[in-house]
């Protein structure tokens, strides 16, 4: 087992004809991911390195049985692309696109929750990989190995750092997931922690957070009550300069949450082992499994 993606995952790539979309989709395919289709309005019938292009996600699903969408389309069209994939019936939509306006993300999330049962990962995320089974996104698969540690992070590149630390110590991963750091992530820490807790393959969890927002504090609450598997955590930004804050609305909403120390305290309190340096994640996991 693994979470969200496995050998049965069939991917349709939205924006396969673009530079980034093509580069990473082909890397995913070379890894063994079933990349079955691409979409680009007006280019239906063409192919990219043997992958058929369709005008719509609906057509792609009908012809290829795709169940997962990976989105690279530029910000102005991303909301519509994600909604198209959801309405067409994709179970999972992995949105890599960076720079989508917060309003579009909020509306998109609202509509997905109200009208569909699709899971959105991202936007502005590196995607996810279940080593040995499937890679959907932009994570460098070379640093991963199959195993029993689940990794979840808000930051793309820090996810890679954590995975590398594990692999260097010969500790494999069940699934590595970057949820993205945008204002309205489709999948939260809690969603992923819950899935790891229920996944038979996963025996321990690495959770990487960063300053700002209250997602880590909420995750800590969840861990306290629901997660029995060992959790190792790292929070980036202990020495980061304080951001320029404006107005009081944000302060009222987040209360005293948001600082690295508040997050570290909440996670420690929830029973997680919080390390102060990402290069110590591997050893900390080794100590608990």
């Amino acid at each position, binding site marked *: 087992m693994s979470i969200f993606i496995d050998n049965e995952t069939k991917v349709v790539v939205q924006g396969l004809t673009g530079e980034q979309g093509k580069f990473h989709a082909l890397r995913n395919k070379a890894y063994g991911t079933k990349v079955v289709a691409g979409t680009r309005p007006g280019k239906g019938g063409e192919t990219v390195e043997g992958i058929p292009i369709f005008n719509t996600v609906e057509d792609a699903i009908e012809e290829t049985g795709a169940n997962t969408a990976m989105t690279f389309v530029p910000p102005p069209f991303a909301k519509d692309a994600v909604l198209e994939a959801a309405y067409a019936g994709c179970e999972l939509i992995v949105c890599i696109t*960076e720079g989508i306006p917060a309003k579009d993300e*909020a509306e998109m999330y609202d509509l997905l929750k109200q009208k569909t049962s699709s899971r959105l990962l991202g936007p502005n995320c590196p995607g996810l990989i279940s080593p040995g089974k499937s890679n959907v996104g932009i994570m460098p698969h070379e640093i991963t190995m199959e195993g029993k540690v689940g990794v979840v992070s808000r*930051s793309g590149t820090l996810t890679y750092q954590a995975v590398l630390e594990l692999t260097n110590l010969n500790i494999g991963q069940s699934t590595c997931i970057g949820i993205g750091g945008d204002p309205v992530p489709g999948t939260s820490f809690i969603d992923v922690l819950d899935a790891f807790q229920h996944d038979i393959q996963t025996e321990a969890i690495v959770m990487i957070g*960063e300053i700002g927002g209250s997602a880590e504090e909420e995750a800590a609450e969840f861990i306290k009550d629901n997660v029995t598997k060992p959790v190792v955590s790292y929070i980036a930004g202990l020495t980061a300069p304080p951001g320029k804050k404006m107005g009081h609305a944000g302060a009222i909403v987040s209360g005293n949450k948001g600082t690295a120390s508040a997050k570290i305290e909440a996670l420690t309190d929830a029973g997680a082992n919080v390390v102060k*340096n990402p290069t110590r994640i591997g050893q900390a996991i080794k100590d608990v499994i």
Partner: protein
Amino acid sequence: MNLFEYQGKRLYKDFSIPTPKSIFVSSISSISDNHDLNYPLVVKAQVQVGGRGKAGGIKVANNFEELIEYSNEILGMDIKGHIVESLLIEEASTIQEEYYISFTLDRSAKKYLMMLSSKGGMDIEEVAENNPDDLIKLYISPSEGLNTEVVNKAIKDSKLNKDFNDELNDVISKLYNLFVESDCDLVEVNPLAITNKGVSALDSKVSLDMNAVYRHDNFIDIEKEIPIPVSEQFAKEKNLNFIKLEGSVGIIGNGAGLVMSTLDVVSEYGGKAANFLDIGGGAKAETVTAALEVLESENNVKSVLINIFGGITRCDLVAEGIVEATKGKDLKWPIIVRLDGTNSKEGLAILLENSNEKITISSSMDDAAKLAVKGAN
């Protein structure tokens, strides 16, 4: 992007939100007796920091002499490290009641949040802390929006003056329209006042979501009016996320999380970062070249740590950028490079082919940080 009060109020006018009549000036010579405002006038320092009233940055002028006197006093004033470079001069209002209203996105709830209070004009965080019942929180579905009935109920629940219900409802709806249609991260009015001339937004705190710049031509004009530190100007032109800090280890990395983490690790080994510089995702060779150019003009930099973990960013392109920026140059400081992830083998090969005695390749983030700290001492 945080706006000055006068910029927020311009947006208010675009959305027909009532606000006092005003003029905006950035020099004494541009203030003449020939304005069409009625005294008394409020002279307000335009700075992006709270507490300007207490610091003497807001004064009421009853005639032209006082207007010039106070403007002279306030222009150039240092308010908590912010130098006053411009003034908003507006007609004073006779205030009967002061309310608080804001619209923002609540990331936890994943909905828009309207906060409304009859206790405006004072520290609203204190109200939220000590009298939470006096602050009404209303969550708004982003796909459904706000409707009149809901606003009427919020006005009633907040115990705002019911004689002004319709006018308040109208202003609140317009503020919401501004929040949504102008892609604002924040619209906050404190106070939203009942004055002798009706409901009026006396202050403005507006922040814009720059991810939406492609659908708002005016964002660029607004941005041009906001001064940024000289050191950050070049980086901004090159689309680099750069923040100047006080230390001596120059930092370049990809992804905010990894860069923040690099700062933390450098600090753990006894160093201090000279800056935060994120080249973002999918950087090209020229992005990396530009990043090194930014650090070249920073005098406090004594060593540079380039920490890249390729995903969407390709290490071969990063290496090309490093070579381009350093080739044939007598470098001022040692550069420690750590490359991992997508195309890292190709990247390292490029660096080895173009070796430079000031450039050291490190195989781990920890070692790279140690070397960079050592190089800065």
